């Protein structure tokens, strides 16, 4: 198929940036979206033009590195799918596809489609852990956990930290991401001891990093490639309220 691509090009953090248009012909349906970008980049190199920088690594939908805003949707048209798992079957001959980086104050653009998501690491450092030094653990089966709790915890822990929830939100809120981590631990006995501090500290760090407030639009859940549920946000709100009462 033949496509027209409008891609955000920005030299570096201080450059203003703009869209560039590329005609991309002979793309097969079987390619992944990023393989289509590989092809485009190879052609640019052949012409002596600088290839487009974009983040990616695993190309299996699990590392959370890929991050393209495609035709106005974080990770593109397929729901529950990362950019790297999106395949060209999703498009048809003659389509125009617009590709931008994540847009959020807390995720400044580094170059082209690459943004800085280190704010997520800081939030994690603020409380996304159980304080257990290596060597301090008891036998694993001394902590029986009801299967449903373990499954719910796992579903929250499946978050890949990609930031699509932030990119999809008109307020650039990171609530879905933070709530997923808080929920993972809140649902497990191991997480109880630090439950209060965790909710308070992670929310505090989230606010400090410049993410916006949550107004329950639900666009994060709709765009999340791992289908992290809004229930987690409700849980975080309860955790946060309870934590404030206890402190």
């Amino acid at each position, binding site marked *: 198929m033949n496509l027209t691509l409008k891609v955000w090009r920005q030299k570096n953090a201080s450059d203003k940036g703009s869209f560039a248009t590329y005609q991309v012909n002979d793309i097969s349906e079987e390619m992944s979206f990023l393989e289509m970008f590989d092809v485009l980049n190879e052609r640019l190199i052949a012409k002596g033009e600088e290839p487009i920088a974009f983040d990616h690594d695993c190309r299996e939908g699990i590392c959370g590195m890929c991050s393209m805003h495609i035709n106005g949707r974080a990770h593109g048209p397929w729901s529950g799918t990362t950019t790297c798992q999106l395949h060209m079957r999703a498009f048809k001959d003659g389509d125009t596809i617009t590709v931008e980086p994540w847009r959020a104050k807390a995720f400044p653009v*580094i170059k082209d489609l690459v943004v800085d998501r280190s704010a997520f690491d800081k939030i994690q450092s603020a409380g996304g852990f159980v304080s257990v030094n290596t060597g301090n653990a008891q036998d694993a089966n001394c*902590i029986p956990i009801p299967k449903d709790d373990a499954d719910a915890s796992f579903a929250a822990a499946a978050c890949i930290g990609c930031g699509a929830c932030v990119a999809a939100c008109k307020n650039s809120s990171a609530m879905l991401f933070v709530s997923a981590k808080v929920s993972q631990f809140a649902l497990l006995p191991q997480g109880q001891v630090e439950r209060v501090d965790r909710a308070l500290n992670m929310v505090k760090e989230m606010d400090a990093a410049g993410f916006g407030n949550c107004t329950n639009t639900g666009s994060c859940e709709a765009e999340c490639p791992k289908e992290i549920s809004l229930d987690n946000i409700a849980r975080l709100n309860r955790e946060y309220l309870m934590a404030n009462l206890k402190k």
Partner: protein
Amino acid sequence: MSKLDSKIPEGPLETKWSSYKSSVPLVNPANKRSLEIIVVGSGLAGSSAAASLAEMGYKVKVFCFQDSARRAHSIAAQGGINAAKNYQNDGDSTYRLFYDTIKGGDYRAREGNVYRLAEVSAAIIDQCVAQGVPFAREYGGLLSNRSFGGTQVQRTFYAAGQTGQQLLLGAYSALQRQVGLGNVQMYARHEMLDVVVVDGKAKGIIARDLVTGKLERHSGHAVLLCTGGYGNVFFLSTNAMGSNVTAAWKAHKKGAFFGNPCFTQIHPTCIPVSGDHQSKLTLMSESLRNDGRIWVPKKKDDNRKPNEIPEDERDYYLERRYPAFGNLVPRDVASRAAKERCDAGYGVGASKMAVYLDYASAIERYGKQQANKLGETGASKERITQLGKDVVKEKYGNLFDMYAKITGENPYETPMRIYPAVHYTMGGLWVDYNLMTTVPGLYALGEANFSDHGANRLGASALMQGLADGYFVIPYTIGAYLSGQIRDKALPTDHEAFVEAEKNVQDTIDRLMNIKGSKSVDHFHKRLGKIMWDKCGMARNEKGLKEAISEIRALREEFWKDVRVLGGKNELNPELEKACRVADFLELGELMCIDALNRNESCGGHFREEFQTEEGEAQRDDANYMYAACWEFKPGVQFELHKEDLKYERIKVSARSYK
């Protein structure tokens, strides 16, 4: 030979590690605070090591090339992690895990290291659960297990098909906690490009800030390379796009021996190549062989749809050839068997380079079980199928989804097409019992070292090894070296060794940028990959390897004359990053072929066509090759062989049989 002292402690196998631990020199808390450790890599090995060392009081710096420690390639591991817990009461033990690993590795790994690995495996599960890793559980609330290839017990712990993700996020949470406490300094989007060695000891690294392009000097009392495997030398592999050999290769060029470079694992169950545009291959976890059955049509060039081929016209070739282990034979055996069928003309799919992995009978079996459980006697066939699909979805849902997205086919309805692909490298930097390379102060952990898997790794054992190295081994063994360094100040970064190392890195970058040739980096990488796959892949022979060596030399020369790297050096430049990595792959590839040519036997993943039994099984030559091949780098890309003889005191070495 003094350089290859494996430092295995004296005494009986069962007590080596415990007596080592009680006699290894310690570093007191005050001294720990003034000792700096550089950890390159934030995968399971790197994150677990960095967090544990920081908890102990060392000052730690961690480097990774991704934008966050959490994105290291370990995140992609699917199926599970082994541990000798014997929770299933099916006869597992430390000894059995040790034995399975040595046998699975075709008797090419060190007894002492492997026994220690099996010994610490149980504590890994305890540690991860304490961190809040949500492993799969049974209804009673206890941990669930599955089986993996090459074993007859259920010792694999898992979290759906995302075990690596959950384990890495556990280690990452421990790491980020130490970052928050100020004990670890994290350098994401940084790539190590050289080791700094003074008086024969590792004293620091040169790293490139990938965002600004600036070269930085970092000094430390020890350097830990936890930089993963080098499967991407084949271009197409199941590894993440960025996985590379650069850190290990630079260390190799600074004196660290490279062990068994040709030992590559080709994984039997991956989604087949679909065209020239292919950028990577996707694994379908080995756990799928628990329930899936592998087959090809009995008739050559059978073009019927799989569901139209009746049961008695299917060849379940693994079950036929290996009745004792069936679909759960080790990876090397399963891969070769698939290649054998396809080469003989029985392959399926458009390319005929694929076999079926079929879930129909598992769906039926689970459906019936579930109907019984729910008391639905006389459930219809449709109902049973639906119930069965639900069970399969819970166990393997994310893998089935992934398959559907990539191929556009529904694996619940039609068998998956699979073919072997490069997956893991057993070879790596040679290390002793302390995980130290031949350069004092320089360590290698996780997939980056050569230590525990011999010529073939068993499924679910890489995660185990990475975390064993990081959580439970290095925190002890590093004391043996650092206790002797407490009087040494960190090397000042204006030391001439730093200046020189930085200049060398800068020169290489300038050279690459100034070639201004006509072909992209990927162009060369793909050509290298093709040579490697055709001549140093699943089957190798003397003629092919000799050709490969001269082809790679020629390709390397061409690369340095004609590669085109656009963009600037003082900015984010993914092309330049790739160019630096491919330059190293072009040297490594040659060494892999040299090593494969040297090893005149077949063992594990290394299959030399000249050395096979009448039935087509690998034929080892224990009399002449029971050694780890350790290569020393010599100027001008020359390599000198050193041998570490392997002695089996406990295990009786025999032909590996899974029949």
